[in-house]
């Protein structure tokens, strides 16, 4: 049995979690104050994920860039590969908040969406 101490990053409360592992299997998560904390503890020790936020170039808009995010968390190891994909894209104004920019971000099955709108110039 192995234990790992983590700080939960699901929300700003930042609970101190203790995850007990038996090999690759999570036996228990303690220290969390909500259900999301338990899920984070399990995921962090088995398949850590993060939400990616960045910006994408926009042509013909009132702003030169629009902010984007992966709609759900993607595998942590995929962040830099995803950044490469994100930086290749150029959108054309207008775009609305929630527009899908990439349907499937680097094969994660998670879409990249805009997090603000940009009007046409």
């Amino acid at each position: 049995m192995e234990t790992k101490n983590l700080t939960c990053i699901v929300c700003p409360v930042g609970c101190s979690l203790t995850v007990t592992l038996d090999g690759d299997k999570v036996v228990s998560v303690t220290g969390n104050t909500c259900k999301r904390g338990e899920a984070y503890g399990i995921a962090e020790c088995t398949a850590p994920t993060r939400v990616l936020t960045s910006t994408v170039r926009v042509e013909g808009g009132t702003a030169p860039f629009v902010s984007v995010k992966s709609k759900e968390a993607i595998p942590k190891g995929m962040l830099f590969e995803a950044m490469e994909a994100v930086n290749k894209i150029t959108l054309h104004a207008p775009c609305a908040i929630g527009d899908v920019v990439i349907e499937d971000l680097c094969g994660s099955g998670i879409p990249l969406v805009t997090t603000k709108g940009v009007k046409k110039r």
Partner: protein
Amino acid sequence: METLDLVIVGGGPAGMAAALGAYEEGIRKMLILDREPQLGGILEQCIHNGFGLHRFGEELTGPEYADRYIQKVTELQIPYRLQTMVLNIHMAEDRDKLITAVNEEDGLFTVKAKAVVLAMGCRERNRGALNTPGTRPAGIYTAGAAQKFVNIKGYMPGKKVVILGSGDIGLIMARRMTLEGAKVEAVCEIQPYSGGLTRNIVQCLEDFDIPLLLSHTITQIHGKKRVTGVTIAQVDERKNPIPGTERYIECDTVLLSVGLIPENELSLGAGVQLDGVTGGALVDETRQTSLPGVFACGNVLHVHDLVDYVSEESDLAGRNAAKYIRHQKAEATIQRKITASGGVRYVIPQTIHLPVTEDQRFYFRVGDIYNKVKITVKSGDEVLYQKGKAKVVPGEMESVAIKADVLNRAGADLEVTLVQEGK
């Protein structure tokens, strides 16, 4: 002259929440003034996620959080003027307030209002405030300025970065610049603990193996035209660099994340009394300042770590501004001071009028890391409230909720303090 019920200075999360709070209390003749070309304030450039978990029960990015409020303000047709700089707030003899502002369309104009909500936010401490020795080359930015360059303008401020201070914006920018291809060499924090949220240490530094050097500071900035490097050193308990611990780090950029200052020039001009610790106004339980009908909320009142709490506080300020406008005089007659002691740096509000009809929440920040404490609210020698807490840290705002009837029993001024467990 245009005569209104309420003018709100600032259209960020605080200003918008105050406007919506006042609207729900029936106020219609109001106006939000903001110097930026869009509503939303600083959230516009905070493209990372983690906003709104308390308020909306989901994790939003800054622009998405702002959009929720912008949609409501637009839907309810609450008037606002953008790219408008408020120059002066003046108390007229009849207790009305005269707000003078300027913009391209209207030129210089003055509006009259029964009440004002101050929601101007805060600004960053800069190099001048630190007196960091060295040359004055290009490449030194506050973390928020760098955030605007990267996220709004699309420019990278540099390739090799050292960050001074572990405030949240600095941590967020360490990750952001790393993702965009820069190398963040280190984050130096003069305190023995981080000033940022723990979750940001984990997901912005640890995820990318960026060293967090506690009890370290920059003792020299090098470079003629552009930053070429910094000398860092460990500091002792008195924050003085320890000779022999100096180390040179090559870099082309220095980001400063060394604290935020409530932006209260307008408040001071109007005659609002400020708290020496928070840098914001002294307020009562309604978030009214020392001037009747002038309210303050959000980061202009005290620096928050979570926007969710800014919204909550501003909603309260807006609702109370509405009550003031409607001349709903409170029954309260006794005024009690609320002071901070025993490790607590400050408490918001600083005064309370009793009796209160609603339960109250006091917000405070501690000056150091304390383990196993009892957060204690006293009235004279009488303990009104006590709550155990495993750990309190300066980077995270704390609060206590106290029942109205308990407060109404208070026979003396109030004090929020920490008692070490077991004593």
